[in-house]
């Protein structure tokens, strides 16, 4: 049998795993792999990003829109360390990703060689698994394990570091076997029948139940089962920011978002329900507010794949551990068909108060500077609810996720747990490549946009038809809002003197337009959406608007403020 190099073995492994695109950046210690990528251009599309952080976020965007494992590749040293933010983001938001880094030759390890860094040590706390390959013979087994671990159970990032000599070494009898189990790893814990019965009992006898669902529903491909469960049980359902789009925005039992900038109804009624059914979510502090006053009156059932999440932040009455698609299937025939009309009405009444005090004023604004909300309104009016929204981090993120209409799952891609500014632009590029048929709209603040602005180059080079909306308030808006509310308006280093984004966009040969008047907004959004190719729309919005409702950090969910 023909001998092949370790580098070629890596490529063959990726192809066998069904990888069709990699996001990366070459450099010394990964050059043998790039040399093979040159030979396999037909099979593998390599997207040259402009900074390795962009490679990870693009891989995340790709994974979240396609449901497949995203792959990022970089060289040793700074190439590898630049991946760390994206890896940490993928870890906390459970995104399946495999990162491949080059490493100095094995005989140089520990000698502080040029571009040597201990990336396995550095990435350990933020990876689901990592490993350093020093022999070509290990490549096949380790890469198959990497993909299996990244996508199974609760997904997450895996980093594989490969020394340069392992890439050069020749191996005989290359064979790729997909990993199907690891004896020390239980991706999907099994559940007891009795747990299902206990859950059903609690659900069937509850009078004021509330469902809070998260991204687990989407990651578990459980949208149909979830919808059936919601509709049969008639239980009002609220979403975390990563869970949105699992059922449509306009569904009659969708009562809005929970958490710091969530909706009035579900936040207040969290502290009045008698049963809280948490599905594929992890009680993040941005969701729960003060734990000492979070849903204390309620019994809590937690549907969760990761046993370590159970009782981590909130003590629960009952944990239904397992794959949510399976557990919901088992629950469904046993729950009574009910409706909770008067209870659902309470959510509507409270959300009406929010509509009058907050939403109507910013979503249907008629005078004064443009609000972020009316930009999302214009996007809603010109799309069918089927586009993918990619957001960065800050005020624009909260506004976009609150107001965007979703009719389809896997439509909201944002940095939730880590709150990584600079996420959106490269993630949007990855999302578009992951699902090219769908419209991808990146809504980004002026601050975050400038953290990964160089990826405009990648968007141009790959002709990715990403629509970029910059909501420019010339402030780091969310920090400024906190300074206004909690630091007596001392605006320390939050005001930004920005460059001309339209000119910058032109420099990258990307069509662009600036809009600052209400009368021009809708036509500009239309122009952006009808343009064949990438487009950047800068919208100059009111400088000192605040995002409400808001649960001040450390307060109870029921102390949510409308102004």
């Amino acid at each position, binding site marked *: 049998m023909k001998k092949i190099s370790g580098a070629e073995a890596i490529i063959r492994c990726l192809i066998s795993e069904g990888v069709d695109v990699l996001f990366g950046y070459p450099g010394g210690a990964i050059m043998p792999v790039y040399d093979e990528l040159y030979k396999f251009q037909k099979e593998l599309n390599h997207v040259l990003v402009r900074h390795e952080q962009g490679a990870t976020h693009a891989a995340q965007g790709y994974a979240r829109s396609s449901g497949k494992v995203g792959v990022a590749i970089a060289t040793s040293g700074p190439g590898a360390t630049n991946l760390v933010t994206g890896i940490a983001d993928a870890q906390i938001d459970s995104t399946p990703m495999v990162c491949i880094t080059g490493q100095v030759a094995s005989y140089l390890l520990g000698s502080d060689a040029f571009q040597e860094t201990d990336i396995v*040590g550095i990435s350990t706390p933020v990876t*689901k698994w*990592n490993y350093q390959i020093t022999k070509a013979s290990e490549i096949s087994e380790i890469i198959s394990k990497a993909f299996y671990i990244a996508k199974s159970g609760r997904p997450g990032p895996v980093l594989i570091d490969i020394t340069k000599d392992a890439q050069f070494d020749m191996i005989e009898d290359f064979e790729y076997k997909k990993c199907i189990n690891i004896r*020390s790893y239980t991706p999907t814990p099994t559940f007891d029948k009795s747990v299902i019965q206990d859950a059903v009992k609690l659900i069937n006898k509850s009078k004021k139940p509330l469902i809070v669902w998260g991204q687990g529903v989407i990651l578990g491909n459980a949208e149909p089962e979830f919808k059936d469960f919601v509709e049969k049980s008639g239980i009002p359902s609220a979403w975390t920011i990563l869970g949105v789009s699992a059922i449509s925005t306009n569904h009659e039992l969708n009562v809005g978002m929970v958490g710091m900038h969530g909706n009035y109804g579900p936040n207040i009624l969290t502290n009045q329900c008698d049963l809280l059914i948490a599905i594929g979510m992890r009680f993040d502090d941005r969701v729960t507010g003060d734990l000492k006053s979070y849903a204390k009156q309620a019994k809590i059932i937690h549907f969760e794949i990761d*046993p*370590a999440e159970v*009782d981590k932040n909130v003590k629960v009455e009952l944990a239904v551990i397992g794959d949510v698609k399976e557990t919901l299937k088992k629950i469904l025939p046993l729950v009574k068909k009910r409706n909770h009309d008067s209870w659902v009405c309470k959510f509507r009444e409270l959300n009406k108060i929010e509509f009058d005090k907050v939403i109507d004023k910013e979503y249907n604004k008629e005078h004064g500077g443009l609000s972020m909300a009316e930009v999302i309104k214009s996007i809603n009016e010109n799309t069918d609810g089927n586009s993918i929204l990619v957001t960065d981090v800050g005020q624009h993120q909260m506004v976009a996720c609150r107001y965007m209409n979703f009719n389809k799952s896997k439509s909201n891609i944002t940095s939730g747990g880590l709150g990584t500014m600079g996420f959106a632009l490269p993630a949007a590029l990855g999302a578009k490549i992951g699902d090219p048929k769908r419209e991808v709209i990146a809504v980004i603040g002026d601050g975050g946009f400038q953290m990964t602005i160089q990826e405009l180059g990648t968007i141009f080079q790959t002709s990715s038809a990403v629509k970029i909306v910059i909501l420019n308030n010339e402030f780091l808006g969310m920090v400024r809002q906190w300074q206004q509310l909690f630091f007596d308006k001392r605006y320390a280093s939050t005001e930004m003197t920005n460059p001309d984004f339209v000119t910058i966009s032109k420099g990258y040969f990307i069509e662009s337009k600036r809009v600052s008047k209400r009368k021009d907004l809708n036509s500009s959004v239309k122009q952006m959406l009808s343009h064949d190719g990438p487009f950047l729309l800068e919208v100059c919005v009111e400088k000192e608007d605040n995002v409400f409702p808001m649960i001040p950090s450390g307060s109870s969910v029921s102390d949510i403020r409308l102004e």
Partner: protein
Amino acid sequence: MKKMTYTISIYTENNVGLLNRVSQIFLKRHINIASITSSESEIPDIFRFIIIVNVSKEQVVKVVKQIEKQIEVISVFFHTDKQTIFLETALYKVKSSSLFEEKQIQNIIKESRANIVTVKSDFFVIEKTGWRSETEDLYKKLKPYGLLQFVRSGRISVTKKSMEISKILNGK
């Protein structure tokens, strides 16, 4: 919540980097590791870490779940002192001259049920295996005679009830 001493027993694959992966879980939560030992376990190729921490029950449960979640960790158990048989070993290096000049030393060794491991022309080494209080007691008694070196191992322990690790391995 009240803090107490817990023995965490971790069965793992034998891979480079696992110690780092396990210890970062304590680091992230600002938990001090009181002692740590690792050795091959009763099952070939399976390693066993024994980590001693002084934390609340709630903390130890969470930490154990996080360790259990790591890919190459096979199983994790935690026990209180009452549930385990545990020991530490201490070595005391003393000047040879004091062994002959200070008769009291020989009594101390006898009373403490310690052993003399080796006697050289310029020093001798005493070994004591037992509970922390016993090795500490001997330390206090020998200190006045001039200790050249003193070292104590991490705690090793076995549990009173079985941990059934082989069953877990076979079941997977």
